[in-house]
C-alpha cells in the first residue's frame, strides 16, 4: 500500500488498460473452456455413435416408425384398449406398491441412519464417519445390481425390487436428512436430556417434530423417483408393469396394442404422482413459512 503513493499517480487510462487486459484474459479462459467442452461433446457423440449397433444418421428417420406402429395398432384395436388398461391395472398397482413400500422402509431407515450420522445428535459420535461411509456406499449401488442378485436368490417378484430400491433410498434420503438435521435446533434436545430422556426419546420428541416437514418433502420427491425405478426394475424381471411391458414387447408386431396400453398407464401414473408430489411439497414449504 505504501508503494502506491510513491509511484506516479494512476490515470484512468491505466485502470482501463488493466481492466481490459483482465477481461481479455478471462474471455480467453472461458473461450478455451467452452472450446474444450464443445470438442468433448462432439468427440463423445462421435464415439458413442461409432460404438452403437446402428448409427445415428442411419436410424434417425426411423425414430418415429416404432411409435407410429404402436399408435396405429392401438387405434386399429381401439375398442380393446379399455379392457387392456383394466388387465394391466393390477401390475400397475404392484409397481406403485413396490415404490411406496420401499420409500416407506427406506425413509425409516434413512431417519435412523441420518440421526446416527449427524454431529451433535449422534448416539455414538465416534461412529459418525462410519455411518456416513455406509450411506455413501448404499447410495452408490445402483438398484439393478441388488435387484438382479436378489432375483437369483429369492426368485422373481416384487420383493427383490422392494429391497433393492429401499436400500438405495436409505443412502439417498439419509444424506438429505442429515443435512436437514444439522439445521435443527439443539435446545429441545437439551431440554429433554435435562429431564432424563434417553437417546431415542430425545430424537423422537426433540428432533423429529422440527424436521418432519422437510423429511416429508424429500420423501415425496423420492417416491416420485422410485416409481420410475420400480417400473424399470420390472423390466429386468422384478414384477409389476415393467415385466408386463417386456412381455408385450417380446410378442412383437400384432401385440403392440398391449404395449400401447402399458405406455399409457405408465405415463399417466408418472405424471399423476409427479403432480401430486409437487403439489404437496409446495404446500409443505408454504405451510412452514406461515
Amino acid at each position, binding site marked *: 500500500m505504501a508503494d502506491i503513493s510513491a509511484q506516479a499517480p494512476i490515470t484512468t487510462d491505466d485502470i482501463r488498460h488493466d481492466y481490459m487486459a483482465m477481461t481479455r484474459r478471462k474471455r480467453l479462459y472461458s473461450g478455451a473452456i467452452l472450446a474444450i*467442452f464443445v470438442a*468433448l*461433446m462432439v468427440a*463423445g*457423440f462421435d*464415439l*458413442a*455413435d461409432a*460404438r*452403437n*449397433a*446402428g*448409427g*445415428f444418421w442411419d*436410424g*434417425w428417420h*426411423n*425414430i418415429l*416408425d*416404432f*411409435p407410429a406402429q404402436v399408435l396405429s395398432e392401438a387405434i386399429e384395436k381401439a375398442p380393446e384398449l379399455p379392457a387392456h388398461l383394466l388387465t394391466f391395472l393390477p401390475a400397475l398397482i*404392484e409397481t406403485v*406398491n413396490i415404490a*411406496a*413400500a420401499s420409500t*416407506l*422402509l427406506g425413509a425409516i431407515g434413512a431417519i435412523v441412519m441420518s440421526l446416527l450420522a449427524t454431529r451433535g445428535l449422534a448416539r455414538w459420535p465416534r461412529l459418525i464417519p462410519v455411518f456416513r461411509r455406509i450411506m*455413501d*456406499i448404499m*447410495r*452408490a*449401488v*445402483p*438398484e*439393478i*445390481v441388488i435387484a*438382479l*442378485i436378489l432375483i*437369483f*436368490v*429369492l*426368485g422373481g*417378484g*416384487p*420383493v427383490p425390487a*422392494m429391497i433393492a430400491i429401499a436400500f438405495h433410498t436409505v443412502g439417498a434420503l439419509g444424506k438429505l436428512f442429515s443435512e436437514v438435521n444439522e439445521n435443527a435446533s439443539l435446545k429441545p434436545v437439551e431440554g429433554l436430556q435435562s429431564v432424563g430422556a434417553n437417546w431415542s426419546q430425545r430424537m423422537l420428541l426433540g428432533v423429529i417434530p422440527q424436521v418432519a416437514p422437510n423429511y416429508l418433502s424429500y420423501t415425496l420427491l423420492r417416491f416420485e423417483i422410485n416409481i*420410475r425405478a420400480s*417400473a*424399470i426394475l420390472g*423390466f*429386468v424381471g422384478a414384477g409389476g408393469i*415393467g415385466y408386463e*411391458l417386456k412381455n408385450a*414387447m417380446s410378442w412383437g408386431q400384432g401385440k403392440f396394442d398391449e404395449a400401447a396400453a402399458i*405406455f399409457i398407464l*405408465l*405415463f399417466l401414473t*408418472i*405424471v399423476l404422482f*409427479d403432480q401430486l408430489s409437487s403439489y404437496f411439497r409446495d404446500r409443505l414449504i408454504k405451510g412452514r413459512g406461515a
Partner: protein
Amino acid sequence: MTFAATHDMHEQATRLFRGKRIVNFAIPLMMLAYLAYIFFAFDIPGLAQRASIDNARTLVGDSYSYKTHVEYDARSDAITVAIEGERKGTYEPGTGPGWLSFDGDIVRGDLGRGHVVTFDDGTVTYDIPDYGPITATPSRNGVDMTFPQGDRTTQPDWINASKNRLAVTTDQGRLTVTRTRAELFKYDYGWELFWFTLDSPFHGKSFGELVSLAFSSDRVVPEKSNIAAMASDFWTNKMWRHGDVAWALFETVLMAFLGTFGAAIVALPLAFLAARNFSPLIAVRFGVRRVFDFVRGVDALIWTIVLARAFGPGPLTGALAILLTDTGSFGKLFSEALENVDEKQIEGVQSTGAKQLQRYRFGVIPQITPVLLSQLLYYLESNTRSATIIGAITGGGIGLLLTQAMITQKDWEEVTYYIVLVILMVMIMDSVSGWLRGRLIGRAEGH
C-alpha cells in the same frame, strides 16, 4: 383475562392436544397397516419356499473363491487340469497348480490337511486322514470301489455311493467318479487368473519377481519391453477381459456425460421460452411446458425402448434416452430459476445500452449459473447410476456386462468384480462432481 376466557383456552388446548395425540398414534398405525398389507400382497410368507439357499451359497462362495477341476477321462485315458473347468483356464498337459505333482502317468493332488488324491492308471485313490483310503476305478460295468471300512451301503453322509457313481465331499475338496470319468474339485480363495492367464509368461510370478522383471532388460517377449508385455497381457486377459471392462465403464460414464450436458444445452434455450418473465406469449409458454412434462413423464425406460428400435443397442441409444428425459427435468428447473432472477441486474445492463442478447448474456446467465451448474453436476452423478441401469436394458456399458455375467449364473466372481467397479465409479463421479461444484460455485451453496 376472565375466568371464562381461560376456561375456553384450556378447553381449546386440551382439544388440540387430544387431536395431536390421535395423529401421532394414527400415523404409525397407518404405516403398520400398509406394511401388513404389503406383507401379504407381496406374498412374503411364501418367499421362504421360492428362495433358494443353494443359489445364495454358490453366489457367496464363488465371489471369494474359485475351484480347480482335475478331470480323468476313462475313454481317452487323459487328465486335464482346468480352472473353473473353462477352456480359457486349461493348463498345458502335464502341468498344473503347485498342489498337483506329476510323476509320469501318476498325478498326485495334495488337498491340504493330509487329504491326498492320486490318479494312477485309471484308478483314483482318495486318502482321508482318520478315515482311510477310498479307491475307485471307472469301468464299463459301473464304478469299482473299495472302502477302508464297510461297503457302499454303510458309508457316512459325506460319501454318496451307488453302483454307477461315487461322490466324496470334504472340506478340502470334492471327488466324483462315474463310469466314464473321475473329477476332482479343489476350492481356493481369491479370484483366479486375475492378473495374467495361463498362456502369459508372467503367470504364477510373485509381485517382487514382476517388479524386477519390469525393470530388467532381458525381454521375456522379444518384440516388446517387459512392462508393455505385462500391460498388454493384463489388458487382454481372456478370463477377466480387463480391456473390455474398462471400455464398458468408460461407455457408461460417456452416456451419463453426453446425456446430462446434451440435455442442458437443449433445455437452456427452451427454458427461456417457458419462463413467465421472458416469454410473453402464453401459448408458447404453455406449449413448451407441456413438452417438458411429456418427455419427463414418458421416462427413460420407454425412451430407451423406442430409441433402441431405431438405433440398436449401444451407448448412443442410452445417451439419447438420458438426454430426452433430462431435457424435461432441466427445462422445468431452469425455467423456475429464470423466473426467480433479479430484474435489477438486467436493468443495469440495459442502462449501458446492451442489446437483447447481451442483456441475457450479462444480466441473466451469471445469475442462474450457480443453480444451473449445481443441478447439472448433481444429475451427472445420478445419471451415472441411471446409465448403468439403461445399459442393462439397451445393451451397452457396464450394465450389459453385469447382466451377461449374471445370466450365466456361475461367474459370480466376475459379477462381484463388476459390482465393486460400479460402486467405485459412482463414488468417484460423486466426489468429482462435488469437487467441481466446490471449485465453480464456492463452498457456500446457494445464496
